[in-house]
């Protein structure tokens, strides 16, 4: 059931990302899917604005009590703590004492919730907001569930970037140009490598890809380094040889 739900969620999110979308709509969809997939009772996506305060971008329900809970955390609370530390924050119970955020906990308890989980929305070194998950029952989320929650938060961040790119004409022109130039760069690097190692073009391409993958580099970065002659040729040669011997029929 869980796996089925998760698969369905990612198909739906991927479809939306490909088709183009409104970012607020996407965040609502994501919040809804969090409720369905993570077996929580309410979810919200909060982003920090240019004043440094958290704003609700999407939530699984527009219930006033829930929105109030999100609003309460705009300057302090578990969600702000999560944003500031870039680490997940859990309040496993709103009833045990002492409570770190007593005012928030009292309102949450009154709203019928037992626990809260906040997961950071990160982009490289930067944290842009947090995903908030409420459950009626008390207790922490299981480790696998927390990992899925982090994946959902990451998808939210990607969605946000995507929306900015699509609505921003300059960025779109840049993205396209970047993709086109990368392609040319890679063809030129294939030529350099083919000549230096005396290999064919497809082996050259595979070599570039394998090297990029094993070092976690962008393919275009590896291509630039090959052209500039700043790459470790010994290692690249080893990668190329491993590939050509793998293709050779065994005796």
């Amino acid at each position, binding site marked *: 059931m869980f796996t089925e739900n998760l698969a369905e969620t990612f198909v739906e999110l991927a479809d939306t990302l490909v088709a183009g979308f409104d970012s607020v709509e996407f965040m609502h969809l994501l919040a809804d899917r969090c409720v369905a997939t993570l077996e929580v009772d309410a979810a919200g996506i909060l982003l920090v604005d240019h004043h440094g305060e958290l704003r609700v971008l999407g939530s699984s329900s527009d219930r006033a009590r829930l929105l109030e809970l999100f609003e309460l955390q705009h300057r302090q609370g578990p969600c702000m703590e999560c944003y500031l530390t870039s680490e997940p924050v859990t309040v496993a119970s709103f009833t045990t004492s002492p409570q770190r955020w007593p005012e928030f906990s009292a309102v949450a308890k009154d709203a019928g919730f037992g626990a809260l989980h906040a997961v950071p929305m990160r982009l490289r070194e930067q944290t842009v907001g947090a995903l908030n998950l409420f459950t009626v029952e008390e207790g922490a989320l299981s480790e696998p569930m927390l990992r899925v929650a982090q994946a959902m938060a990451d998808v939210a961040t990607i969605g946000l970037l995507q929306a900015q790119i699509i609505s921003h*004409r*300059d960025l*779109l*022109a*840049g993205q396209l*140009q*970047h993709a086109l*130039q990368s392609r*040319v*760069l*890679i*063809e*030129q*690097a*294939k*030529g*350099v*490598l*083919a*000549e*230096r190692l005396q290999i064919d*073009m497809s082996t050259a391409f595979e070599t570039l890809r394998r090297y990029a993958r094993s070092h976690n580099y962008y393919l275009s970065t590896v*291509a*630039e380094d090959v*052209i*500039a002659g700043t790459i470790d040729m010994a290692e690249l040669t080893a990668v190329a040889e491993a590939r050509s011997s793998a293709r050779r029929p065994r005796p």
Partner: protein
Amino acid sequence: MSGERLAKVLAHLAADAAARGVATSCEAACEACVSLIGVTGAQLTLMNGTGRGESRYATNDIGAQLENLRFTLGEGPCEDSVRSGMPVLAGDLDSWDNDLRWPLYVRSAVAAGARAVFVFPLRSGAIRIGALVLHRTSPGPLTQEQILDAHVVADVILSLLLDELTMAHLEAEVLPPNGTPLSRAEVHQATGMLSVQMGVSMDEALVRLRAHAFAHDKSVVDVAREIVGRRLRLSPESRPDPR
């Protein structure tokens, strides 16, 4: 790049040059793109040996001043574009974030009369030889169509500049410039191979490839295929006889 757009841009450039009684050159292309794209002026910055760059041509005084600012201040949209190899579009030059980005440049560029600056690199992968700098005296973004046209103009100018270099290499007086960019994979691959064979930069390798094709009356793509297929090698010394 759609062939239609290239054909449209080339036709516009040829008609514009013919109307003014000049040959199709990168200077003529700068003049023609002002009306094609709908900007106040265009200017061409080329990277020279020192890497600081220099102005090749400006259609008006504002363009010339913008290049002076780039050169003296070492900042601005053109400087960013040349460094990154990416287009830089500043539809509102005097905006808060552009002012933060280029504090010295923006003030002087606005004083010179520019309110919007759009820079398109002259680039083919690792080959980066300069930038086409367009400006307007009123703020406002380029449309998607104008952006695409400007990219095509930049490609045509790159190709015209390569034709010039090819002519210089061949010490030839006549080489009918066609301004047709070559975006075939084989040409890029052959350029990479040649740079290793001849021990030259990628720019130089592409010029040698074009020169060889011209001297032997073959198409650049055909020569590229011979090189990729290892049926042709060019040595560092090989210098085709000028026709």
